[in-house]
Structures are given as C-alpha cells and as structure tokens.
C-alpha cells in the first residue's frame, strides 16, 4: 500500500508540474502551483511521508489522511472525459503462423492494415453513506457496439490520442446500458448494508417504543385508579390528552431514528473514456505446391481476440487450414479432393469432368477439351496444333 501511495503521490505532483525529489522515507515537493497550495490550505514546500509515525515531520499521505483526501478532491473535476488508444503490436508472420495452418501451400507475402473501432468505458463511483460511515466503490463498465463486454486489456498499452473522427451518436444509449449494468451489480452490497442498518434501527425503535409504551401503561394505571376512586388528584381528561401526545411523540421519534439510520446511496459517473482500438485486415498471398496463387483476407480483432478466418469457397465453412485447390479455390477438407491423375488437391467445382478415355476424374491442369470432338481428355491423349494454342486429341489429330 505504501508503495502504491508513493507512486500515486509522485504521479499526482508530476501532473501538477511540481518539482519532486525522493529522499529516504519521504518526498520533497516544491514548485507546487499556487492553486493547489490554496486548495490544500498550506504553503509549499511539502515533505510527503507515508508512515503514520512520521506524520509529525511532514504531510501524511495515507488511507485516512487529509492530504490524500484533498488530492482526491483536487482531481474531482479533471479527467471526466478521456479519449485513449489501445496500442497493439501485431507481428504478421507470427500471427499467420499461429492462426493459419497450410496444407498444400506456403505464404509468399503477408501484410496487415489496421482500421479503428471505438469502445466506451464508463467509470462509476458508488458511495454508501450511513450513520458515520462512508464506503466507496469503483466500477468500470465497457460497452462495445451496444453490449456490455469484459475485455482483457493486459496485452495493450494505453496512450492518449487525438483522433477526432469518433462516432458518439450512441453515447447516451451506451451510458444507459452501463447504468443498468451497475444497478444490478451493486444490489447485493446495498442489501447487505441495509440489513445491518435494519438490525441497529430495530434496537432503537425498541427503545423508543418501550419507553413510550411504558409511559402509556403508567397513565392507564392512573386512570384505573381514578376509576376505582383511589386516585383523585389527577384529571382523567388531561391524562387522556397526555396519552395522545405520547403516541404522537413516539411516531416522531421513530421517524427520527429512521432518518438517522437511513442509507444514502449515490452512484455517479466519474469518467467516460472512449477507447480507440485497432482491427486488423491481414492480406496473405499463398502459393500452392502446384504453383497456384491466391490472396486471402483475414480479419483480426485483438481486443476480443477474434480472428475472422477465410471461408471455403464451396461450402462457406470457416477454414481451420488453408487448402488451395488447383483451380484457385480455397477449400475445406470436405470440399477438396485429389486429382486422380496428378494427385494434387482440387475441388468439386474443378473436378467436374472425367477423362473420356480413362474415365478418371482429373483436374483442369491435367485435362483438356479437344477442339474437334469436344471431349475432355487427359493431356496425355492430346497434341497441340501447329500454332500450339489449341488441343486436339490423338484420335482426331
């Protein structure tokens, strides 16, 4: 805790632009802006200490110290709205290696380009005040595309940014979403404190009730004695009036006790941060073993750790490995099949034809259509014409 307090104090006075030097158990702080000195009510320089035993030599910064309270109060109207950037360094090669298994191809080239997305972070402070106690809670709610999310920010660095092309049209809707989320998350604590207060309040009500009831009982006894003739010095009408007065007073005192034991709950928004985070479009240029090439686009959202893998050109399923068919298609294992001639992977689209001679299914690379008989046959049964541009099967040649 001491270290946290020290770091906090260092950062605080650094933000103020003060001069800070560390010496042993304390910080010497000078050049503190006059505004803070006035706010704190004491002139600089300050010797900031963190150990209660040293409080006589300087300004104590500790959980219940006045200095910490004033530092906090001084920050109250600052940092309400923040625009920040989550920085993430994408290593494209590693990313491709980790996310794209390749069955029949290799990566020729991979590049990545970042686009920007915005998420909202609402920081709420909930204060419970009751009797002479005060408890404070801090809750952060992240809202991304209208939904409450729970992102892992540990792999990011955060920095201020000056991007102004942010879309804040949904800000208030997102705030409402966050507000509802907070309400439900503080419920259990509210109920626990209320139960404790109930217990104490019931004791006070018991005291008040017992006192007033006893008073009424005593008056009733006097009235009984008046009725029996053993008490003559009292006026029964006056005693009845007193009973009403006591009953009224009892109500008043109970109400007062209820007020004293009330729980004052206040949740307020202390900071709204718009967080800019990157989404990457990774372009990977693959080349198959048979020399076919294909450009593939992969989307990566590092905040949600979500990779939008390419899909099979045929069945549209997400591809866990890259299979490049001889006909330039990206296929999955289900949709890919091997050419019965060259044994290279091809797909159903590309293997539609059988060789008219061998009756085997062969890929486009292995077969040709004879320009004369119009039959699809294995290249082995073909000859090129004199120009070499058209193929004629040996039967027709």
């Amino acid at each position, binding site marked *: 805790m001491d270290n946290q307090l020290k770091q906090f104090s260092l950062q605080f006075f650094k933000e103020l632009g003060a001069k800070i030097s560390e010496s042993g158990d304390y910080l010497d702080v000078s050049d503190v802006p006059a505004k803070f000195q006035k706010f704190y009510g004491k002139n600089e320089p300050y010797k900031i200490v963190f150990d209660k035993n040293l409080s006589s030599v300087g300004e104590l910064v500790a959980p219940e110290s006045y200095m910490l309270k004033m530092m906090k109060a001084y920050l109250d109207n600052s940092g309400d709205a923040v625009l920040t950037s989550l920085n993430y360094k994408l290593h494209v090669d590693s990313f491709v290696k980790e996310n794209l298994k390749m069955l029949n191809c290799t990566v020729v080239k991979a590049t990545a380009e970042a686009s920007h997305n915005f998420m909202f972070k609402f920081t709420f402070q909930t204060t419970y005040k009751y009797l002479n106690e005060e408890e*404070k809670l801090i809750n952060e709610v992240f809202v991304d595309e209208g939904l409450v999310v729970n992102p892992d920010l540990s792999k990011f660095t955060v920095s201020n940014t000056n991007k102004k092309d942010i879309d804040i049209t949904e800000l208030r809707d997102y705030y409402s979403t966050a507000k509802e989320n907070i309400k439900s998350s503080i419920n259990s604590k509210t109920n626990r404190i209320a139960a404790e207060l109930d217990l104490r309040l019931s004791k006070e009500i018991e005291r008040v009730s017992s*006192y007033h009831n006893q008073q009424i009982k005593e008056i009733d006894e006097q009235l009984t004695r008046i009725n029996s003739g053993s008490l003559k010095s009292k006026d029964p009408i006056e005693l009845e009036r007193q009973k009403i007065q006591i009953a009224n007073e009892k109500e008043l005192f109970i109400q007062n006790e209820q007020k004293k034991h009330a729980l004052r709950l206040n949740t307020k928004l202390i900071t709204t941060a718009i967080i800019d985070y990157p989404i990457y479009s990774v372009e990977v240029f693959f080349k198959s073993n048979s020399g076919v090439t294909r450009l593939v686009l992969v989307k990566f959202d590092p905040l949600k750790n979500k990779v939008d893998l390419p899909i099979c050109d045929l069945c549209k399923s997400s591809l866990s490995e890259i299979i490049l068919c001889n006909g330039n298609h990206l296929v999955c294992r289900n949709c890919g099949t091997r050419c019965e001639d060259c044994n290279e992977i091809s797909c159903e689209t590309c293997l539609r034809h059988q060789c008219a001679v061998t009756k085997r299914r062969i890929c486009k690379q292995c077969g040709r259509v004879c320009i004369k008989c119009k039959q699809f046959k294995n290249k082995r049964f073909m000859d090129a014409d004199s120009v070499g541009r058209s193929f004629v099967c040996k039967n027709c040649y």
Partner: protein
Amino acid sequence: MAIIIDESFSDDDSLVLEKVEQKKFGSIDVANLKVDAIKLEKNTELNGLVSYDLVKDNLTYKLPHQTDGALHILREMNGSALLADEVGLGKTITTGFVIKECLVRGFVSKVLILTPPSLVDQWVAELNEKFNMSFKIIETESDWDNCDLAIASIDKVKIYDKKNAKFKHSKAHEIAWDLLIVDEAHKLKQRNTTRWKFVDRMQKKRFLLLTATPFQNDLIELYNLLHLLRRGHLGTIQEFREKFLFRGNKRKPLNPLELRRRLQEVMIRRRREETGINYMKRIPKIEVVHLTAEEKKIYDSICDLLKTKYFAANGDELRGKLIIYAILPKVTSSSRSAVESLTKIAESDKYHSETRQIAQDIIEAYSKLTKDSKIEKLIEIIDKVLKNDPDAKILLYTKHPTTSKYIIEKLSPYNLKIVEFTGGLSREEKTEKIARFKKDAQIMISTETGAEGLNFQFCNVLINYDLPWNPMSVEQRIGRLDRIGQTRDMQIYSLATKDTMEEHVVDLIINKMCCIGLVIGELPTILFNLGLDGEGKAGIAKIEEMLMDSFIDSKNNLELFAQDVKDISKMIQKGIDEYNDSKLASQEALDGQPVEAI
C-alpha cells in the same frame, strides 16, 4: 425497515457526457489518478481522525484523550453523547475534532453550537484558530438564514415570546441540524424551562451535550439531561425513580453500578488523573501601592471630578455611564494615560468650563509630581522576581497601550530585555515576538488584545499593572499561562492602590474569584450558573457593570463601595459553593468516589 435514499445518477452525469460530446478530452493519466485516489482512500472504517493532520500544527499538544474521545463519540455513539470530562481536559478541543472530522468526511453540513454568552467569542476563536472553521455568531433572527456553521448564546436565543406563543428564534427549529452541541449543558437540568424546551425542539441528527457536572442536587437533573439526549435511555421517570433513586438522598443512586453501566453507553467522562494532566496552582500576590500625599490628592480629585464635577458645556450634569466606563479605567491605569484622558477633557469644548479647569488643574498637579509610586512598586516586584529566579519570564499586562509605552519608558534605565506586544500585529510579527520572549527577553508587556489566544506556558509570572473589572478578562490573562504544559505554580502579581476602590476590586477579582484554586474553565461555568456571565444593560460584562455602578452611586464613599463589593463577593461564593456541590455530586455518582471540595 431502513430507508434507502438513492441519489444515484444525478444531472452531474450529464455534465460528464456533455464533455464527451463536446470532445473536451482530458489526460488519461489524470483520469487514472482520480480513480486511484478513490481506491487508495480507506473508506469504511472510522479508525482514525482524518482531520488530525489538518489541525495538528495549530495544537500545542497532542492529547490522546481528546482525539480518542472524538473518535469514540463518532464511532461508538454515532455522534450523540454526553461529554462530561472534568474541567480542564479540553472539551472544546474534543468537540472541535468531532465537528472537523464530520465536516471533512462529509457527514455534516449544518452545525449549531449553543453556549453561555461569555463563551461565544472564545468558542469562535478556538474553532477558528485551532480548527480553521468559521462559525457565524447568531445575533438576530435573520442570521439563521443560509447559515451552515452557527454559534449562539443560548440565553439569547431561548427567549420565549409569550404574546405570540413562540420562541423568538423559532427559525432555529425549522433547520435540520446535522450536529447540535450544547455547552455547559447542566443548565438543562429542568424539563419545564424554556431553555430545555428550546433545545428539545431542535431537529438534530447528532447531539453533543458538554458539562463537567451533569447534575447538582438531584439525580432527576441527570435524568432530564439524558432524556433530552436519548429518550427512554433511563426508562420513564417513574421507572428511573424506582430503579435508581435512593429514598432520602436525592444525590445517591440506588443501583450505582447499573446506573454507571447505562451512562457509559451515552457518556464519556475522563478525570484528570486518568489523562496525566495536572494544573498548577495560581498563587495570588497582591502588591499594595502606597500613594504619596500628592498622588492621593490627585487620585481623589480625579474621582471627584468624575463623580460630582462632571458637567457638559451647557451646565448639564454628565452621568452617562458609558462615558465614565470609558474614562475611569484610563485614569486609574497610569499617570500617563490619566493625563492623556484629562487633556482631552481640558481641551474639549463639550465640557463645562469648570470641569475643564479642574481637569487642567489635575494635569498641572501631575506635572509637579516627582514620584510615581505605582511604577516604583512595579520595579520593586520585577527586581524581586528576577533576584529570586534570574531566568524568570514575566508577562506584564496593562489595559492601555499608553500605559504600556509609559512602562517601557520607565523601565528603560534598568537594561531589561523587554518585548512589547500590543494589538494590530501581524501573525509573523506575533510569532517573532513570542519567539524573542521565549528565547531572550525577560518581560513581555502586553495588552489584552495583543495576547488573546496565545500560549505562554513557559512563563509562570504574571503582573497585572492595572486590573480589568471584568473577572473573565482577568481569567483570560491568567489563561495565557495556566494551560496544559505549565510545569510550575504561577505567581499572579496585582498592583492595588491602598485606600482606593481598586484595593477592593483587586481583592474581589483575584482573591475571591480568579485565584481560589479553580481550574481554568470553572469560573465561567460558575458565573454562567449565577447568570453573571453575560453583558449588562450598558453592554459590558455584568460584574464590571455592577462595580462601575457602585463606583458612581457611592459618590466617593469608599465604605459604601466596599459594602457593594462584599455583596458581590458573597454572591460569587454562593455560586462557588453550589458548583463544588454539583462537582462532588457528579463525582460521587459518576466516578464512584468522593473527592475533596475546593
């Protein structure tokens, strides 16, 4: 069922959102600091006083019983208690901590202190100097408007307007006070008084009653006090009588242990021996000044002038008490201040020619004097003190700056190290002079306004060159020395001119009031109990006014004046006896052991 007041999501949230919409963005580091600060603050436990750091530099001593007491009141008693510490333990400081802590933690915003009239200024000064809190003094009804930190003389505000059947200051009852404090609360011992009813009617969330003597003659007084604080805590009056009242002795509880157990739940009471605080003795030393025949003649002439030959220009007799009240202390302070006042009379055409001539004659008589017996007596005292203790520090008081200058002039041939301390000094100048007095100087010559609220516990000799006729002013003078930290008995020298009214006044104020073994804080309580702590009709302290009136009415007859002083003395003694009684009764019932009376 506990009430939950949900003040969440106020318009302030909108202000934050607006900043986002207006793209007024701040630094992420500041935002993080803001959140860190909240997280670092310990919030639930009231384990220590946050306010202590803030005020520690203003306090001469850290006395654990004061901070512990405040913490106990807040934590264990929810801010409502009977603070019945013995006199001299600093109930004001403990209360100051309670208020400051509540304000700093944000528990309270509206605080009212009801005190005896004579203590209003003292409270305001202490809370301001030690706790940096500015309390507004309630004088008129309109003062209650928009007043968060208020202090009022209970005697002033409790007045009941029978004609309109309401309290004159009923506005006080319309305000929901977060914290109400009543000082010298033993005066709330009777339920049928307007004082009790006024306090009972207040809306108060936290309530502190301060008194060292919760009851005097009858345990019912204690019941009434606690009835105000916490209804039913001691049962109904009938139950209380049955359980705790001893037939035949109204001061002795029937079940003392049970009563004490119940009291402990709502009362804090510490005794001096528990805290290790000891007050030293005040040793009065009246130094009689024997005037020479010439000086006595001048003195009598001045008295005669003011009593019988004091006429306006048109011949009307001037009996304006206020004028005499203003002139009399000056002419009796020193020959220099007397000449100064007489010169004003001699030179002013507001006075009758005969009056002016008499004044002129006295001035001339002064100029022919070859001896100033009072100054010689002073030199004799200083010589005696310094011979006895060469390191002694002497605090010399006079009412008038003219006299202060005169004394310095007269002491100059004696090579004494003197610091003059008068009103109008800046804080830095005061600090410098106090440091000089503490380190080098032998004598500090001060006027009342100069040393108000300052601590000189390193000094144990006080000389009253002249004496205010208001005992509380004298008490304030002695109070500069008689504080926690004083380690030696104090010698209180007072100069009294033989065969003058001063001789009687000094005897009354020093020997019968200020130096009779009372601890600081007890005399104001006694005067308050007697109804003598307020201002009289002429706007000065009641006792001072009584003495002045007697001076005027006695027409230069010293015997008549002496008789009046004797009557006042008897009245004071009665108050002291009653106070001792109540102290004894409180100690017997609350502490369980009898103590010796003064």
